[in-house]
C-alpha cells in the first residue's frame, strides 16, 4: 500500500474505541455519508446523505464537508481541513466521531490498533478447569457457606 494510505475508524464515542474501520489508498476519493453509494456508509440519522469527502491533493489528505451540518474538528465547525495522523472529527454537531490513521506499510502502528479487530466470527471459549478452580476458590471456605445460610434465611423471611 502506498505511503499515503489511510484507515478511517468509526468510534463508539469521542476518543473512544473503534467499532468499524475502512482502508483507502491515496488515489481514492472517499465519500462519507448515509447514502448507500458512499465509500463509507454510516447509518446514523445525524449524518447527511453525503456528508464529507476525503481526497489527496498536493500530497496531503484533505477533508471537506459537503453537508450543511459541517464537520467538527477540535471543537470547531469546519468546512475544510487538512488531515494528519490521529485527526478526529465529528460529522455535524450531533453525529458520530471518526478517527484517521496513517497506514505506514510495515508499521508498528499495527500493534497499536491491534485491540481493534473487526471480528465477524465470535470466538468465545470457556476454560472449564479454570472455571472450576475459580468457583472452588470462592466457594470452598466458610465465607460462602455463611453467605448461603444468610441468603436462605433472608429468602425464607421474605416469603409471605
Amino acid at each position: 500500500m502506498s505511503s499515503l494510505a489511510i484507515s478511517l475508524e468509526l468510534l463508539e464515542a469521542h476518543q473512544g474505541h473503534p467499532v468499524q474501520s475502512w482502508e483507502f489508498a491515496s488515489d481514492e476519493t472517499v465519500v462519507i455519508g448515509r447514502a448507500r453509494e458512499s465509500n463509507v456508509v454510516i447509518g446514523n440519522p445525524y449524518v447527511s446523505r453525503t456528508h464529507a469527502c476525503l481526497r489527496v491533493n498536493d500530497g496531503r489528505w484533505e477533508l471537506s464537508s459537503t453537508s450543511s451540518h459541517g464537520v467538527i474538528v477540535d471543537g470547531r465547525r469546519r468546512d475544510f481541513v487538512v488531515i494528519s495522523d490521529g485527526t478526529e472529527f465529528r460529522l455535524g454537531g450531533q453525529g458520530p466521531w471518526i478517527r484517521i490513521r496513517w497506514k505506514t506499510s510495515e508499521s508498528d502502528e499495527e500493534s497499536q490498533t491491534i485491540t481493534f479487530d473487526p471480528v465477524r466470527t465470535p470466538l468465545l471459549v470457556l476454560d472449564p478447569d479454570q472455571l472450576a478452580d475459580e468457583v472452588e476458590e470462592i466457594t470452598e471456605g466458610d465465607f460462602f457457606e455463611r453467605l448461603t445460610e444468610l441468603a436462605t434465611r433472608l429468602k425464607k423471611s421474605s416469603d409471605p
Partner: protein
Amino acid sequence: MAQTISIHSYRGGTGKSNTSANLAVLLARAGNRVGVVDTDIHSPGIHVVFGRAPSSFQRSLNDFLWGRCPVEEAAYDVTTTAIGQAAAEDDHGPRIFLIPSSIKTGEIARILREGYDVARLNDGFRELIRVLRLDFLLIDTHPGVNEETLLSIAISDAFVLILRPDQQDFQGTAVTLELARKLDVRKILIVINKIPPAMDRELLRQQVEDAYRAPVVGMLPLSHEMAELASGGLFVNRFPQHPLTRELSNVVAAIQDGSVGST
C-alpha cells in the same frame, strides 16, 4: 407478587445502569409500578440516566443503610421524566421510583470501610415493595464478585447477567453464573451488550447458550446513539424504533414470562 430482579455484570462499564433504567421504563409503560435501586454504592450512576442531578435528592440509600431514615424517604418518583406527564397524573397509572446512592465521597468511603448490613438492605427491598406497592424492583449492582452483590443476587427472583462479546468477560461471567446457581437463583437471564455491527449474532448466541446453559434473552448492538447519549437520557424514549430498543423489549418479555429458566 412483586418480582425482585438484580442486574449485574462481571466487569464495569458493561451497561448495567443504562439497561436497568431502560428496562424500568419499558416495564412501567406496560402498566407496572417499578422501583429501581442503585446498590452500586461504590460508584453510583443510574440517577444520571434518569436525568436527575444528585443535588435534587435529599436522601439516598446510604441514609437508610445507616439508619437515618425509612427507606421510602429515599425513593424519588421519576415517572414524569421517565414515561411522561399523563401517566404520572393517573392515580392508578404506572410509576417509577428511583432510590439513588449517595455520590458524596465521605459516604462512599464509609461503605468501603465498613461494608453494609445486607440483612438491612433486604428489609429495605421488602419495605419498598410493600409501601410503594411495587410490581417490580430492579437492583442495579456493583460489578464483580463481592459479598453484598452476591447476597443481592441470592435474594432476587431473577438475575439478569450482562456481558460483552469478549473473551475475558466470557470467562469471568461464567464464574458469576456458577455462583448464582450455587446460591439457588432460579431465573437466570443472559443479555449480551455492545455487539459490534459486523459480528455474527446467531453464532454468538449459540456459543454463549451452549457454554452457559442459560437463555440469551437480549442481544444489544453497540450503538452510536447509545454512546452519544453518554448515559444522559433514556434510550428507549429517544429511539423507540431502534433495534436496541427492540432487544430490550425482548428482555422485558423474558422477565415477565414466568416460565423462562424456571426449571
